């Protein structure tokens, strides 16, 4: 069973405060830590609802699910973080942002940029994406980027 802990709750409180401060919207997703196996089972259960072929499900099991270390699940408004891998500040911030994100498509680069703004961690964003979005911020301002993030439609259409 996925679990929480005092350490996680402290991390979540700080992350919620940081995300709320920049977005002016408070995420309300429940955050839990899970084992790698639990994450695998959870994602497979989600995929099972889409009636995929066996070959496609195998592809997910072999090539996709092993790389999932943190995920927001829309169906039950939960964020699961894999113990020892995904229970990190930058992954939590990224998933909390996804939990309130309204725009799509092109949803990742804008989330990467906001994750970087909140974490200042250069490993969370490709330098080229950072340059592109720094320019967008100069052109339109951070408020416009956040408004774009919280509104339906293409995340990169300003």
């Amino acid at each position, binding site marked *: 069973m996925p679990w929480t802990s005092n350490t996680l709750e402290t991390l979540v409180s700080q992350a919620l405060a940081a995300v709320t401060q920049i977005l002016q919207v408070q995420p309300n997703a429940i955050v839990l830590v899970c084992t790698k196996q639990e994450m695998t089972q959870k994602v497979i259960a989600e995929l099972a609802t889409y009636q995929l072929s066996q070959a496609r499900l195998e592809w997910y099991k072999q090539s996709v699910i092993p*790389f999932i270390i943190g995920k927001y699940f829309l169906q039950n408004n939960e964020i699961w973080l894999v113990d020892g891998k995904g229970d990190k500040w930058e992954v939590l911030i990224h998933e909390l942002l996804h939990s309130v994100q309204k725009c799509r498509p092109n949803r990742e680069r804008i989330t990467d940029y906001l994750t970087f703004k909140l974490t200042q961690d250069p490993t969370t964003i490709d330098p080229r994406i950072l340059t592109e979005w720094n320019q967008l911020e100069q052109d339109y301002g951070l408020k416009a980027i956040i408004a774009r993030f919280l509104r339906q439609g293409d995340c990169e259409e300003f």
Partner: protein
Amino acid sequence: MTETPSIDSDIHNLDRYLGSPSSQKVLQLLTCWETLSVKEIALKAALSESQVHVTLNRLEKLDLVVKQAWGKYSFSNSKFASLLKTAYSAILEQIIGNEIYQLTKQMDNIPRETLEAQYSKIVDQWGPLLSAKFSFQMNELAGFFVEFEQYFT
């Protein structure tokens, strides 16, 4: 007996040791996976097994790779091989980072099948380094594929 190349004397002749594109590919793969069989290298590098044999023989003569007792190949323990592996690690991070960037850049704009094929190629080639060095980016890509099913299936 193979003479170990002298780094000082041969540093200006680096091409000889890095060798052909096939040698570079083999060395990149061994940097990433540590040990691989001829068949595994052939599959990951899209080379024929005979091409891989020729390449590995050349690299063995240069004392850059060794055949392990169980038939798989790895970098040798020579100082030059060790330096080369370190250099390749840095190069690989750039190569993989670039491949992930290109994939991320076009993931909403190319056919799903193409995207999956490109993603699978990256995973097949660089699996261990993806988890070690690009866990954040790979989590994002993996999450994207699952989300895709949610919104478009």
